[in-house]
């Protein structure tokens, strides 16, 4: 019985796939390929050696864009959050820039960086940077004063206070922000690859359609994007289970 409960989601997916396959075979010639055709698409991509290549290309861009954004946004957010005046000065600017979709930056990205990796890395960076700055501002402002006072009491310098108190105290909130932002990065890379480069999973989808309406490859690419997005999220979630991070202010 327990096994059945655990397998339930898989059984449900299998049932959906079967229904999909049956309805495709009842209406041949419809525009959506059936699951079996998508499997064929996967085999095709694997045989030509492009699937792995494109996955690596997309992950490469996400890694760079996301890491650069995190490395700059978290310190920037800490500074802005810590100094009330910095927040007063910068908050209007942040609020104006924030609603602009990263995709609106595509023309500028191509103007500055041409068509290539840099343009899509820049777009991912844009998509992650401001949300992470806001997360870091909020995280540092919600560090309870008692921790800061205790840190000062033990004679920490400002740098030590940041490293030994503010940073670990803000970490649980930062990780939630990083997890959400990594999801955004994965959304942006696909869009960026449709326009600004000629490799990657986003490119695969556009290219398969343009070069002969291979919708089996389009759906294969979509499935791949979903699976990798899920794996990235599982990876970030596992960070939340680390013992030294498994606490929140709410339980105090």
């Amino acid at each position, binding site marked *: 019985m327990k096994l059945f409960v655990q397998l339930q989601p898989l059984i449900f997916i299998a049932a959906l796939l079967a229904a999909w396959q049956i309805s495709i075979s009842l209406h041949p010639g419809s525009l959506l390929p059936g699951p079996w055709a998508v499997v064929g698409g996967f085999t095709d991509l694997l045989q030509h050696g492009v699937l792995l290549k494109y996955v690596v290309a997309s992950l490469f861009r996400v890694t760079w864009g996301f890491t650069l954004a995190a490395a700059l946004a978290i310190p920037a957010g800490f500074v802005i959050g810590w100094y009330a005046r910095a927040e007063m000065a910068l908050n209007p600017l942040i609020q104006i820039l924030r609603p602009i979709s990263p995709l609106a930056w595509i023309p500028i990205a191509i103007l500055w960086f041409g068509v290539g990796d840099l343009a899509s890395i820049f777009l991912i960076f844009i998509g992650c940077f401001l949300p992470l700055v806001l997360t870091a501002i909020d995280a540092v402002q919600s560090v309870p004063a008692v921790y800061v006072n205790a840190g000062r*009491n033990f004679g920490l310098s400002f740098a030590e206070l940041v490293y030994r108190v503010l940073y670990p105290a803000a970490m649980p909130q930062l990780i939630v922000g990083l997890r959400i932002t990594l999801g955004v990065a994965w959304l942006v890379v696909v869009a960026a690859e449709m326009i600004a480069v000629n490799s990657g999973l986003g490119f695969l989808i556009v290219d398969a359609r343009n070069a002969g309406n291979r919708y089996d490859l389009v759906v294969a690419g979509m499935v791949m994007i979903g699976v990798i997005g899920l794996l990235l999220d599982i990876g970030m979630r596992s960070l939340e289970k680390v013992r030294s991070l498994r606490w929140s202010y709410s339980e105090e």
Partner: protein
Amino acid sequence: MPSSEIVANAMLESKLRARQINMTFKSGSESISVLENIDLDVATGEFLCLVGPSGCGKSTLLSIMAGFLSPTSGTVTIDQEKITGPDPRRIFVFQERGVFPWLTVEGNVGFGLFKLPKAEQDRRVAHYIKLVGLEGFENAYPPELSGGMKQRLEVARALAVNPDMLFLDEPFGALDSITRLIMRGELLRIWDAERKTIIFVTHDIDEAVQLADRVVVLSDRPAKVQSVVNIDIAHPRDISSARYLELRDGILAQIGLAHRV
């Protein structure tokens, strides 16, 4: 209490000296006077309790003496030195739980020892974990500990840096009454072993009379020193003795509480 006695106490070796402390908080156009002309002397190795009605400014006074707040006027000197900020020689134990939840018990106790050699750090961490009875929990994280254990951990973290003074702000306020009784005994045992100068804020008169050498009674806001009561009973104190009840009821009467429920 005649003022001559306060002066007499000041003549003893005075560790901390507060003179004419005034504190006014501004909220909008209003300004609220919290402390008024507080004079206080604390002798080296003394256990002093500050009591008063809740919200009277006890914690504010403690924060000023620890260097976390600057008074509107007046000075606090410790060892003839004017204080300008918090200092590792004087550790504040917070009313809210101040232990760091991202560090283990060991990590918390060793938090202030970063300037010492590793071997000395390890020695002190082990010593103070034992002193507060947290052996076996070295690698536990604070969320896994009970309230009383967290409070003992914070005391151990404070003692590990070998301060000469401890400021305790209602440290047992959030504990249940049985744990609180045990913790008082523990604190006296530790005080007996380490002889730190302790200033302890509480709103619990019984707690003050059980622990302190002297009890400073503050008035309602703006707080003034209403009286200073010497607790001339040797430890361990019999809390049903006539002298204990007399001192306790004297303080209760000063605060204006009829001793009837």
